[in-house]
């Protein structure tokens, strides 16, 4: 494999990780969504590069589906929803931004450690780097769900986890059957739509997207 493909993949995964840190450090929801779209676009480019490298038609297909669903449709739905409900509020945080960046960093280091221990005996170094970044995306997505209160950021945290899983599958098993990828993408669409409907109901009932009030719901 030519060297520049290695270098390109390395740069792309580093940028993907950086975009998740951009999400962690942003205060405004629309910025958050744009960062997610950018991250998905980077994953599209990475999948395309892997497809070109391995001459795999399935990967091209998956890449363009990724572009279509993750980069265009999902951010579009979310942004439209924000415009419709005229949300200008900041992201509600439990943990302050510098601390959450540092915690994200710790999660990344842990993911590197984990990936190194798990797969280093039987895979090249480039796969270790990319898969540990994928793992760290999963952890950072969990952390986003835990540390933010708004339902939209919950959805985005879930989407970041999905991105991480997709990246892991593309990097480790590029020859995954296409039906699996289709199911995952469909899953994302259904999740986003279902959670948006739920949060619209919540907005109608409680008057805000914040989940802090939900502990008052007693049956």
């Amino acid at each position, binding site marked *: 494999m030519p*060297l520049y493909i*290695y*270098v390109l993949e*390395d740069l792309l995964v*580093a940028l993907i*990780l950086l975009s998740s840190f951009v999400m962690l450090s942003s205060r405004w929801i629309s910025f958050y969504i744009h960062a997610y779209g950018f991250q998905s676009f980077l994953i599209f480019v990475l999948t395309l590069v892997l497809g070109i490298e391995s001459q795999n038609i399935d990967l091209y297909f998956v890449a363009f589906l990724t572009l279509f669903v993750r980069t265009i449709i999902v951010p579009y739905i979310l942004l439209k929803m924000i415009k419709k409900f005229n949300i200008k509020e900041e992201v509600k945080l439990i943990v302050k*931004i*510098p601390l959450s*960046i540092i915690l994200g960093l710790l999660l990344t280091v842990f993911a590197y450690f984990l990936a190194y221990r798990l797969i280093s005996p039987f895979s090249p170094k480039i796969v270790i780097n990319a898969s*540990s970044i994928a793992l760290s995306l999963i952890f950072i997505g969990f952390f986003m769900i835990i540390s933010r209160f708004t339902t939209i950021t919950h959805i985005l945290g879930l989407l970041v986890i999905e991105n991480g899983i997709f990246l892991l599958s593309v990097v480790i098993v590029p020859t995954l059957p296409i039906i699996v990828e289709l199911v995952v993408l469909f899953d994302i669409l259904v999740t986003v739509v279902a959670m948006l409907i739920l949060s619209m109901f919540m907005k109608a009932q409680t008057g805000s997207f914040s989940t802090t009030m939900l502990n008052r719901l007693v049956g």
Partner: protein
Amino acid sequence: MNIYLNSTVFQIFQVLTVLACSPFIAGFISKIEEIFEGKTGPSVFQPYYDLYKLFHKEILIPVDASFIFKSAPFVSFISMVLITLLIPVLTIYPLPLGFMGDMLGGAFLFSLSSFFINIASLDLGTSYGGLGSSRATLLAILSEPTLILVFVGVALIAQSTLPYVMLHTITSSLSLYFSPPHFLIIVAFFLLFLADTDRRPINASTHVEMSMIEEARILDYSGPYLALLKWSGYMKQFLLLVIFLNVLVFPWGLSVNHSPSGLIIAIISLIVKMLIVGFVAGVIDTAISRLRFFRYQEYFAAAFVLSVLAIMTFQYKGF
């Protein structure tokens, strides 16, 4: 023997370039900022006129001032000149005095200069001095971990802390040049550069605001002392740009042999590179609004994350 003499000439020209060109770069950046704000702006040679005017004024020293107040400008100026000797300004090969200290030595000299200005501004007991020095110390505390981690990253890549070795390592391997650790280190260092030279996300570098940091520390100085401090400020910016450009970003265009034409090409290419980066810095300075003082940690946390990620990605990639 001939070679050694020639190296000495290069060493002298290195210092002269920094002394002579640093006000020009500062004037250029402020000109760019003024143009982007829709004004004409002062001439790019305005810092030279300022220095000339200040050197011809009388020295006013407050009655309460101790020797620290009088020595701080000289310490600051001389440490900048010493840093010039350590880093590759004009040549790609190490000059004789380049082995006096490594990058940590350079960082030590930067903080020595900053430390002396701090205690000199505290010396008189004026309120602005205390304000400025406490803010500057907070900034130094926040930026120090990132600086050290950038050095660690560079030392891991180059297997040495000498800036000349880093330059050679990058120019000899293109895959290393285009690797993520290198880019992450560049971005982290650029964030530090913006913070250290009083640029916009951190501080507005005018002396009319209450939010001033750098200007508040030297408010009590006047005349030639103020000129020396201002000049060392310009030199600090120039030297950080030199490290940024010649060690990290674009280590080409430097002189490879001892010929005079190499010297001229090196000076011209350095100035051109600086004008490009100065343009970018000016655009950033006008485009971004200033952060609140208690949100500085977010900025430095971002720089810290970048430097740690550089080290992590290098450890598991290792070209």
